[in-house]
Structures are given as C-alpha cells and as structure tokens.
C-alpha cells in the first residue's frame, strides 16, 4: 500500500483554496497543504516535499515553480511538469481550466488522475463563478450609467423617464449600438461640457 499522496496548493485566496481542498477530500485521502504566501515559495514547497503541486495559471508565481522542475540538489525532489505529451487530453483540460500541476517523476497515472480530475472540475466551477460575478457587476454598472444618461436627457428635453429611455433605445438602434454604449457616450460628453 503506497503512502498517501502529499499535495501542495499554491493559492492566495483562502475561499478558493478551501473549494479546491474540499474537492480533493471528496476524491480521496491526501495530505494537503496550502501555501498562500508567495515569498520564498520555492523554499516553502521544498519544506513540504510534496508529490504534487497545484497552482493557478493566472498567478505569475507559477514561473517560480519552473525552477523546482530543474532542481536536483540532494534535499530537493525532482519535480516534473505533468502538462506534457504523456496524456495530452488531461494536459489540455488542465490548461484550459487554468490549472497547472507539477508532479514528482515516476508517479503512476492511476494515482494522479483522480487528483487532477477533481482539481480541474473545481477550477472550471470557480472560473464559471468568477465570470458570472463579473457579468453581474458589469450589468449593475451599465444600469447606473443608463440611469444617469436618462436623467441627463430628461433635464435637457423636459421629458419624462419613459420617453427618455425610449429616445436612448431608438438612438442605439439607429446607430447599431448597445444602449449602455450610447448612455456611456452621453455621460462622458456631459462631463466634458461641464
């Protein structure tokens, strides 16, 4: 019976880290460490001597892990980037999910795959959540801009809110633009003109 896999997750955001840890706990029994502090990253990882390192692709500190892939000192473990030619589908899935994994040489695919499958699925979910959040925020911002543009039109023309909105919508349609863009242009112009 091989010993439990030791996994290090490099993730500065505690909520995100917890989501990944939960997913891995569902997938199997692992020793999991989270490193949130990027200073001295190489030293911290060597301290834990993990079998697998998972890192968010969006983090520039990923380049620091490249160095571990080269390390061959007596106290350092050889770490190979899993994203290679041995399993192209899995590698591509990981890259598209924004996940990078460094794995100790010689581990069998059977032991690593559940870890990566769980991590990839969780990364995809987190990315989806982030996209949705960004979309919601954008929609709110646009709502605010449209309200301000409506106010400007109402004051300038002495018309009511409904008529002001109708005018914005008609202008947008005529110019083949989105209402939010027309509203933004109006708000910017108004600011310029004082």
């Amino acid at each position, binding site marked *: 019976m091989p010993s439990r896999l030791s996994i290090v997750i490099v993730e500065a955001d505690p909520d995100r880290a917890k989501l990944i840890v939960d997913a891995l706990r569902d997938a199997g029994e692992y020793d999991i460490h989270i490193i949130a502090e*990027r*200073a*001295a990253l*190489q030293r911290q990882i060597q301290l834990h001597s993990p079998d697998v390192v998972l890192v968010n*692709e*969006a*983090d*520039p*500190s*990923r*380049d*620091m*892990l*490249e*160095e571990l*892939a*080269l390390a061959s000192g007596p106290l350092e473990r050889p770490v*190979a*980037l899993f*994203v*290679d*030619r*041995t399993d192209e589908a899995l*590698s*591509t899935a990981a*890259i*598209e999910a924004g996940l*990078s994994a460094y794995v100790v040489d010689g581990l069998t695919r059977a032991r690593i795959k559940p870890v990566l499958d769980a991590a990839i699925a969780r990364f995809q979910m987190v990315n989806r959540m982030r996209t949705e959040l960004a979309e919601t925020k954008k929609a709110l911002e646009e709502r605010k801009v449209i309200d301000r543009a409506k106010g400007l039109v109402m004051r300038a023309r002495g018309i009511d809110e409904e008529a002001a909105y109708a005018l914005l919508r008609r202008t947008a349609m005529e110019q083949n633009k989105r209402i939010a863009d027309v509203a933004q242009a109006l708000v910017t112009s108004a600011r310029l003109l004082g």
Partner: protein
Amino acid sequence: MRTTPIPVGYVPLVDAAPLIVAQEMGFAAAEGLRLDLVQAPSWSRLRDALSVGQVDAAHMLAPIPVATALGLGGGATGFEVVSVLSVNGTMIGLAAPLAAAMRDAGHGFDLLDAAAAGRALIALAPTPLRIGVPFPFSMHAELVYHWLSMLGLPSPQSLIVRTVPPPLMVDAITAGEIDAFCVGEPWASQAVAHGGAALLLAGKSIWSWAPEKVLATRAGWANAEPELSARLIRAVWRAGRWLDQPDSRSLAAELLARPEYLAVGAEVIEHAYCGQFDVGAGLGLRDVGAFVTFHDGAAQFPWRSQAGWIGSQLAARTGLDRASAARSAEATFRSDIHRAALARTSAVLPAASSRVEGAFTRDSQVPGSHGVLHSPRNVFFDGSKFDPSAS
C-alpha cells in the same frame, strides 16, 4: 483582402511592443491579418498556451525554445523562432544595503563597465550572492551566469540565480529574499522607485548584442501555414522598423501604456526606449544609449549562432554535451523561414545565417542580400567569442 485572425500571446513588458504596434498601427491589417493579442501572466503559462495551440505565435524569452529543444524544463512540444523581437533591454540592480556599500567603497555606477561593476560587486557581495531573474531560461540568467563566472564567482557555491516573476521583484528585494536582480523594464525602475534598489549595470554591457525576446511558433506551424506565417513575420518586421524611428517612441509608449496592454504610465515606458535611467540611492541619472533595439542592424534576424551560444551555455550548466546541444539549439532559430518571408520586401538581410558571436569589436559593414548591411558592435565584456563552426 480577407482579414485572417491569428491568436498571439505576450507578457506585458516594454519589449512586447512589436506585436502590439503591428496590430495597433495597422501593419497587421496591411498584411490582411488581425492579431488577437492574448496577455499571459507568466512565461510558463505562455509556453503551454503555444504548446497546446491556444495561440499560434508568442512573444518569448529567446532561451525558452532552445531549452525546450534540449529537453530542459516543463514538457512541451518543440518551438521555432521565426524572428527576433528585440535585442538587449535588461538591467541589473542591487538591494539598498549592497548598493550603499558599493557607493561607500567608491564605485561610480556608470551602468556600462561590466568588469568594474562585477569586481566591485564580488568584493562586497554576501556568500552566496542571490540574484533574481524572471525565468530559469532567460537571457537575464544567461548574462548573469556569464558575467560573474567569467569574473571568477563559481555557481552554485557562491552564486544562486533564483526565479522571481518581475511583478514580485520589488517585494523580493525589499524583503531581503534576493541581493540583486536582472530584469527588463518597467520592472528595474519600479524596484528603484518602490524598493529602494539601485541600478548597477545595463545587460548590454555584458553582451552588446544579446537576443532578448523572440517570435516563437509551434514547430511545423510555419511550414504548414507558409502564407500566414510570412504575413505575420512581415507585419512584425515593419512594426519593429517603425519602433526604431525616434519619432515613434512617444506614440509607442502611449499605445503600450493603455489599460488593456501594460497599464502603467507612458513616461515609465518611454524612458526605457530613450535609455535614460534614475540609478537610485541618490546617484542621479545616467544615459546608457540604445537600451533596447527592435530593428536597427538587422536586429530581427534570427541568427543560428545566437541560438548556438544559448544552447552551449545551457549545456555547460546542466551537464549536456555542448557540441550536440549547440547543434540542436541552432535548428530552432529558423533564419530560412525569416529570410523567405522578407524576400520581396526592402529588407536588407545578412548574406550568412551564422557568425562568430562576440567577434565584432566595432560597428561595421557586412555583405547583405542587396547591398551592404550595417552590422553593430557585437562583443562580450570579457572578449570571449562563440564560433559555431568550431563546435
């Protein structure tokens, strides 16, 4: 002409300029291309994106395609270099305490004398000296190793070159994680402005003509897409030519400063193009001349001997056979593809594709494809040479 989109990756640095300018100033459109520029947070991320086909071409540190060809670093499919994007453009700097010690010892910080700066540094440096560079396979690392080993500082006993992503360099130098760094702009100046660091030496003082970033494609892509790759090479070549005209630099700085690209102040970018640096530590301003070159002196030509030098250096450090490493390396710099793409343009290209690197002690004229070609000084600070035919 129908416009063809090409996804192209880059890391937000001042030397990504040829790609950004090719798109923004219409050089891509003139070739019927639209560059869909994709920003990458790290070199390893960009290398993987190119490897799996998320982008078709990428801004890349010149040693990465060579390292990949030698089987070093994270697994990836092979790459080919179809153009050099920039020559030189790195800066070495010191943490505040080390800079103060060197200043007190009377070092002049002229940023240009590599031998004097190196000896003064070795005399006062802690053991081991820890130097941060952006990536294990980078011209930054190669220059630092060459410089200090030629001055007698052995690695790894006395010199540790450590990877620190440029955005984290200021933190690393302030926290005392590293004693010195070699990095491109705007990051060296940021370390001076926000980390109390002082500049010591322009990278070009170690090797006066060091290929810094390249335009890399997946091995085989350029042959499979000869028309498309030739259009890309031409568009980027014209962008580089535009960039090296002094009048272009303010506008180029404005373009790169935009939030979707580098998102820093235009003045931060422009001073790198003009070669003006604040040394820090109260030492004043220095002018280092051309800090980064995009076009002049056939800068964009991918010399096979440039790759050979990189391969030979990497091999020496990792215990590979130097001669065979140099040969594998040379095959990644596709001077033939570059040459074919520019055949029917006004580009004057060198007649040869390989040369003795470090053997040109002054600016000279060499035979070109039509007429003579201005060939800039190409020397190593210690007078060493790399003769590809000797290996």
